[in-house]
């Protein structure tokens, strides 16, 4: 693991001139990940903010091959790319599908689960902003309980689907959570994933300040508060071995939730319920 930001490659393979909003968490995630993946990487990105902010018409911010795929096919396309590279004898290329929470957990779940079950030699990244931001911020399976969205104005009734547990259950080589507030941890996890010969899944919490209704300059701060509250645990499951990669300080969950506009309807009772559930279940009680 790199000891400091200063140790990282200076070259940016993604990010310069991207069309994301100022303070875009997804763009930060992409820039950080590319520090680990390097130039010999083929990136497939389904319909999402990340696909559109990476280029339009004759311009692209990607310095690597980048393919904007259909919404639900990135892991399948990447499987085909890997097959083609193998048959051509090309071995030193990372194949990465990089989807939002919809392209991962909802519309993209079938092809993701299929590729994971086959243990394809690839990395799938979910950059999770917990709602469908590319279409204006609707609710999806990764939207947390009570969050207000453009199509659930009274807040979501129902839990966030636990994608990390689901992907771990596929028995793949590597599963990790990551946060854009902890770039060295994120980059170390991408390095590990890139060294695997099977399937890796990395789930990045990448806040969208528009959807979360927080100031753009606080994107990283809210990513950090999610981790420090314990609501987003940083861990990895490496060949079946589960390790927490950061011990949080366990700030009260309300310090993370209440400043966000999307949780403005949250009652004290609801906050206490979330805190109690967290205290009981954090890291499976380990």
């Amino acid at each position, binding site marked *: 693991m790199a000891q400091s930001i200063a140790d990282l490659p200076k070259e940016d393979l993604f990010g310069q001139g991207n069309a994301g909003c100022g303070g875009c968490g997804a763009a930060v995630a992409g820039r950080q990940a590319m520090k680990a993946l390097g*130039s*010999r*990487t*083929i990136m*497939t990105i389904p319909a999402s903010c990340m*696909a*559109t902010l*990476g*280029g*339009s*018409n*004759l*311009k*692209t911010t*990607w*310095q*690597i*091959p*980048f*393919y*904007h*795929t*259909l919404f*639900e*096919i990135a892991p*399948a*396309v*990447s*499987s*085909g*790319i890997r*097959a*083609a*590279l*193998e*048959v*051509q004898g090309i071995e030193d*290329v990372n194949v990465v599908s990089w989807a939002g929470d919809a392209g991962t957990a909802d519309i993209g779940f*079938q*092809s993701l*689960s*299929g590729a994971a*079950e*086959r243990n394809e030699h690839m990395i799938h990244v979910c950059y999770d902003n917990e709602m469908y931001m590319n279409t204006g911020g609707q609710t999806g399976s990764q939207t947390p309980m009570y969050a207000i969205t453009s199509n659930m104005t009274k807040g979501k009734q129902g839990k966030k689907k636990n994608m990390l547990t689901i992907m771990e259950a596929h028995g793949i080589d590597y599963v990790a959570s990551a946060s854009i507030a902890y770039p060295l941890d994120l980059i170390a996890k991408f390095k590990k994933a890139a060294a695997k010969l099977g399937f890796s899944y990395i789930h990045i919490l990448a806040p969208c300040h528009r959807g979360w209704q927080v100031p753009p300059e606080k994107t990283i701060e809210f990513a950090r508060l999610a981790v420090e509250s314990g609501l987003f645990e940083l861990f990895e499951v490496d060949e079946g071995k589960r390790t927490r990669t950061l011990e949080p300080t366990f700030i009260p969950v309300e310090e993370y939730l209440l400043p966000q506009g999307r949780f403005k309807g949250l009652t004290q009772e609801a906050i206490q319920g979330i805190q109690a559930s967290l205290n009981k279940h954090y890291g499976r009680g380990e």
Partner: protein
Amino acid sequence: MSTILLTGSDAAAYGAKLARIEVIAYYPITPAFPAMERISKFIDDGELNTRFVRVECDHSALAAALGASLAGSRTFTVTNSQGLLYMTEVVYHTAGLRQPVVMAVANRALSAPHSRFPEQGDAISQGASGWIQLFCENNQEVLDNMLQAFKIAETVRLPVMVNYEGYIQSHTLEEVEIPNQEKIDQFLPLNRVRTLDVENPQGVNTVASPEFYMDYKFNQNQAMEQAKTVIKSVATDYGKEFGRDWSGLIEAYQMEDAEHVFVAMGSMISDARIVVDELRKQGQKVGLIKVRAWRPFPAEALREALKKVQLITVCDKNIVHGLGGALGTELKAALYGQAVRINSYILGLGGRNVSTEEIKKVLELSEKTAKQTTASEWFGL
């Protein structure tokens, strides 16, 4: 070169093997699955150096094939009916990305009601997708069209569907001559085009604004227009090398002085040849036009071939609801202004039998129909 008994499925598989496909992705479906299994066996037996991507659905099958093609490998998939419909989004996308994927389709009726029997409605549903579509009349043509499909696809940079009907062709044994591999390698050399290449990074399918989108589509359609010439020249070249010229977009049979012409595509053609020969012996001036390429639609070739005839009987194993048979409708449009009566019939849907008897009857019925059918008539209800 050797001649063996093969089903249409096996003929497609042998075609893929001779083409030395590098990647195959498929999801099992009836009746296409024997072609898939045969290819998997070739791979398992070490006869074919091909990567098999065992996807979890038809949609991902074409997606994986597309990914492999973008990375430069010669790529193939097989499906039919519901599988093809499920793939539809990727079907259009593959054509737009100009990837030379070849797909065999063992044509089967579409649900509802559920049917696993032959019909051409599945392929017809993809008529606007941007894929070249070839229809085969027998198993030899399935194999030969497979090889020509890769040649055409890689020349014009468009994907190609090779259609043969479920069961009637996919599961029926016929004598098929297997071409010599070395000669096929010369006919179809492997020239990889890597769209996704770390040595030459590009953004693929970036968002196209109104200033760009229409021009992409124009170029894509120009490639389809170019295919009209390429399909013909590839058929001629293949004929010279392997002794079987399947003609280009259409084939004219017994057309010299024909007054009444049967027009169709697929398995009906081999039966229709027998009928035409028989009627000719009886002194009737009957001819046959086989539509081999449905996309690009051979409008000019059909106008030329049918300019002197008096009556056309066109038969469709498909129904475009609210319109009629696809071939009948498009033929009428193509021949607009030519003085000819065109009677259009829907028949053989969902596996209802069409043999030489039915073709004879529909020709007789058409002769007796004094006024041109306004839409397609249903035959054999």
